[in-house]
């Protein structure tokens, strides 16, 4: 198997891999599904902002404020270029979680096509991360709207057999993930998007697990909103992106109120600036925006297609290895079709916490538990899984240690 990318060179950009783990073991980081590691380029971009450009954007007419504004708006343009959308359609949030809450609350406050009221229907799926379930579930509770969902099949795909019952003419919003953060399965969203648009509903795509890992064609998908988190895409913590069609953003009420998002203000009244400013109240997360732009530049330089195909090679190798170990069951899709580089598995009847603990002794960082997708885990009749997720800095040796540690975990408890 040959890598489509130079993993050795890539790894050397990430200082964390020099840090010894418990017992001096080298770090085998297989938890990029939770958060990614950061290359020096991203740290340098932030430091450079603080050292040479830092001032409050959009608020001063002095030189440094001009430079800061250019850096921040330049970051917006970078993100727009990365997603191949218009720059004014990019809103910086603090995380995908904030983006999705922003949408739910803004819809609650808006009227017309985007407004949510009693009797309206909101559709999600059983695959969703809590961040793409709870804002909608609670919005439904607050407004009297009805929350509906697509059920999940055992292979991690969605049951679309009753799509016309799930998405009806009462439906206002459909919010679905591009890829499950637990199983790695990529649901067949095309028919869902089409069905949503037939009834005039808005389609929101949770791109947290796809945007950092593969080319995502927003126009081709014909979606209305997309979000992802910077920290899962080599970027800093504390920054998320919300993309939306400008004609929709212009109709939406604000989420956070404060400085820089207004047009005029009196004690009793206020009007709002156009988007994206309308949705960016306060002094923004400037350094993080600049850091995220550097992260996306890094990803683009390596190439999203290269990253994706390399992750799929790692996934193939890991899947095969795991499936050959007696006592190990891969949960979700067993093959390479309709999936990304995230694998969940269980060992014997062991609790994932115990499994992860033994794997940790090998320097392996995997996530254990319900992965913030508790309904999905319950649907599978489990209390949790152990999850390995890959990124551009992982190599085949990492998978070898993964397999060794899985065997180790199994045997540690079998023997005792």
């Amino acid at each position, binding site marked *: 198997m040959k890598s489509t990318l130079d993993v050795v060179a890539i790894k050397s950009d990430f200082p964390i891999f020099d840090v010894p783990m418990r017992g001096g073991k080298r770090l085998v980081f297989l938890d990029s599904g939770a958060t990614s590691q950061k290359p020096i380029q991203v740290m340098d971009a932030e430091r450079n902002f603080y050292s040479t450009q830092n001032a409050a954007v*959009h*608020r*001063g*007419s*002095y030189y440094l*404020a*001009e430079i800061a*504004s*250019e850096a921040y708006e330049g970051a917006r343009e970078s993100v727009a270029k990365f997603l191949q959308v218009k720059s004014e359609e990019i809103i910086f949030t603090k995380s995908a979680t904030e983006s999705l809450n922003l949408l739910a609350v803004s819809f609650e406050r808006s009227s017309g096509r985007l407004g949510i009221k009693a009797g309206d229907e909101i559709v999600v799926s059983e695959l969703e991360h809590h961040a793409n379930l709870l804002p909608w579930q609670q919005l439904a509770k607050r407004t009297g709207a009805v929350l509906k969902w697509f059920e999940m099949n055992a292979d991690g795909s969605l049951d679309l057999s009753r799509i016309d019952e799930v998405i009806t003419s009462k439906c206002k919003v459909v919010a679905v993930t591009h890829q499950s953060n637990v199983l790695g399965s990529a649901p067949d969203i095309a028919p869902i998007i089409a069905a949503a648009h037939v009834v005039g509903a808005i389609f929101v795509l949770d791109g947290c697990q796809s945007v950092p890992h593969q080319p995502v064609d927003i126009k081709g998908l014909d979606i209305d909103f997309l979000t992802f988190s910077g920290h899962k895409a080599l970027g800093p913590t504390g920054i998320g992106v919300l993309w939306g069609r400008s004609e929709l953003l212009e109709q939406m009420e604000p989420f956070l109120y404060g400085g*820089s998002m*207004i*047009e*005029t203000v009196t004690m009793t009244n206020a009007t709002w*600036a156009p988007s994206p400013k309308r949705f960016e109240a306060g002094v923004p997360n400037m350094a993080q925006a600049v850091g995220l732009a550097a992260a996306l530049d890094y990803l683009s330089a390596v190439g999203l297609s290269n990253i994706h195909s390399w992750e799929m090679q790692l996934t193939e190798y890991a899947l095969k290895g795991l499936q050959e170990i007696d006592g190990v069951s891969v949960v979700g899709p067993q093959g390479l079709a309709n999936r990304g580089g995230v694998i969940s598995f269980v060992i014997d009847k062991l609790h994932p916490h115990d499994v992860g603990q033994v794997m940790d002794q090998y320097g392996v960082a995997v996530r254990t538990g319900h992965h913030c997708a508790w309904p999905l885990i319950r649907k599978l009749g489990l209390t949790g899984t152990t999850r390995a997720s890959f990124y551009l800095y992982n190599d085949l040796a990492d998978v070898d240690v993964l397999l060794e540690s899985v065997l180790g975990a199994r045997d540690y408890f079998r023997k005792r």
Partner: protein
Amino acid sequence: MELDSLYQEVILDHYKKPHHKGLPTGEIQVHHVNPNCGDEITLSLAIRDGKVEDLVWDGVGCSISQASASIMSELVSGKSVADAQIALQEFTEMMQSKGKYQGKEEILEDAVALAGVSKFPARVKCALLGWMAFKDAAIQNGAEL
């Protein structure tokens, strides 16, 4: 001094004695604001026989925003909508050039004095305020811009 390229004499003249400034009386009045600095402009106009007429504006703001509105109103008043649009486009291009494009004097007349503004990104919005109000008002009066 770099500053003098920003504050050209014609700009300060227009600032001190703004043209076409008064109480807008037209039926359609547009109100534009630059929320960063609080500059405001109200403007009305009429379009008769394809020409921009009765342009009157009022406002508060910095020398750049006020002078630019004054120069703009002087420039487009009496012009055909088509010519006004050409001026608007030329001016916008100049403003977005970051100091690289000086603008054609035969189109912009006094407004070329504002070329220096484009080197100061924070002031570009000031210079554009009146022009955007004009554009908005013209469209609301049926012009196709």
